[in-house]
């Protein structure tokens, strides 16, 4: 995928490589800004085209702590969470050329990698070797300008999730953070399966409506 190299100029990284020792507890904003998201995407391009280790280091600094936090929210202990974060980052390095910014936001791509690592490592389970985002293009290949749309859409999606009623957001969080099926969620919340199902349906209908409403 040479499109990365052709379109992207990247400033020398301002990030402090290998910040040693000092535990500067900068109050980081957890959510990635659109500019930051574009920079991170560009880093994946540099890895894909040039096997650029500095780009990897910057990407690691951004995502490894998030991956660790994500795994710990799912119940992994800190060591296992770091192990999965490491495996996920190695997969990012190996699969960088498969990342297509016109098809998915980087955080989504990395989420799917982390999800698959979690399945492989925590459950030691086989899963079918396919991801929706990996499927070869067909009638659903996005138009060339989809990329800008996507950056906006993923920002909108974050906003829409925040606006969901708390009980609907809760089921999505349990599903995605804790890797729980809708059946398990109903047991844990002590709610009838039908209630959980309707919360999930309402949440999805709302998000779908938002995404469709966004399309030109």
């Amino acid at each position: 995928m040479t499109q990365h190299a052709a379109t992207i100029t990247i400033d020398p990284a301002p990030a402090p490589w290998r910040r040693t020792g000092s535990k500067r507890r900068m109050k980081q904003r957890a959510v990635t800004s659109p500019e930051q998201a574009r920079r991170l995407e560009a880093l994946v391009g540099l890895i894909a085209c040039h096997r650029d280790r500095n780009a990897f280091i910057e990407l690691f600094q951004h995502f490894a702590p998030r991956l660790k936090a994500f795994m710990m929210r799912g119940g992994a202990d800190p060591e296992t969470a770091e192990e999965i974060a490491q495996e996920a980052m190695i997969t990012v390095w190996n699969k960088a050329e498969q990342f297509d910014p016109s098809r998915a936001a980087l955080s989504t791509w990395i989420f799917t990698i982390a999800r698959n690592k979690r399945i492989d490592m925590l459950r030691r389970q086989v899963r079918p070797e396919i991801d929706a985002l990996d499927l070869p293009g067909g009638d659903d290949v996005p138009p060339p300008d989809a990329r800008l749309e996507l950056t906006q859409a993923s920002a909108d999606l974050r906003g829409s999730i925040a606006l969901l009623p708390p009980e609907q957001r809760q089921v999505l969080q349990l599903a995605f953070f804790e890797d729980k099926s809708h059946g398990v969620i109903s047991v844990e919340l002590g709610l009838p399966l039908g209630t959980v199902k309707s919360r999930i349906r309402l949440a999805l209908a709302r998000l779908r409506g938002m995404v469709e409403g966004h399309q030109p």
Partner: protein
Amino acid sequence: MTADLDLLLLDYASGALQEGPALAVATKLALDPAARADMRLLEATGGALFDGVEPEAVSESLLDATLDRLDGESTRFALALPPDDEARRLLPAPLWRYAPRGLDGLQWKQWGKHVREATLPLADRRYRATLLHIKGGHGVMRHTHRGTEYTVVLAGSFHDEDGRYGTGAMQICDGTIRHRPIADEGQDCLCLGVLDAPMHFTGLLGRFINPKVRF
């Protein structure tokens, strides 16, 4: 049934689905662009939630340890290749590695004159996945299920008491449904079936067959 598909798609997107139903969903995704669009939305939702987590500092040594492992192993991530042209034509990509020697390389069991079935090698023994081939105009005996049965139509179409299912359609049946699927006239029907408990044949003949149904 589409409402239940939503829930299956969510479980797949979050990673909670076991191998058997995950194979049915992956196959459905390969055949159905609308389901793929829904999956993109769900995965984007997962991505947005992931993006919002409060970062957790990693150990000082993790970066160096990770850098040491880059290029260390030649893990290339090639998708499985179709075993032959027939498999490429009839089987969606998620099924290829379950039929490594193509359709003819599977062990087909004949059920009567018009129906044959081959078991796919799932690693997770709690589920059973099969390919079911039904000659056009013929059907599977009336049966019900102790667990849940997921059926994805790979080629042709079938109908039962509930409706008609064309290529790419997915039917989810639980124990409350008793049905007799019949392939539509004119074309053979090939389906992927995933079961989490044995089928239970109803009717007189069923009494003789049920004990022989291996799970």
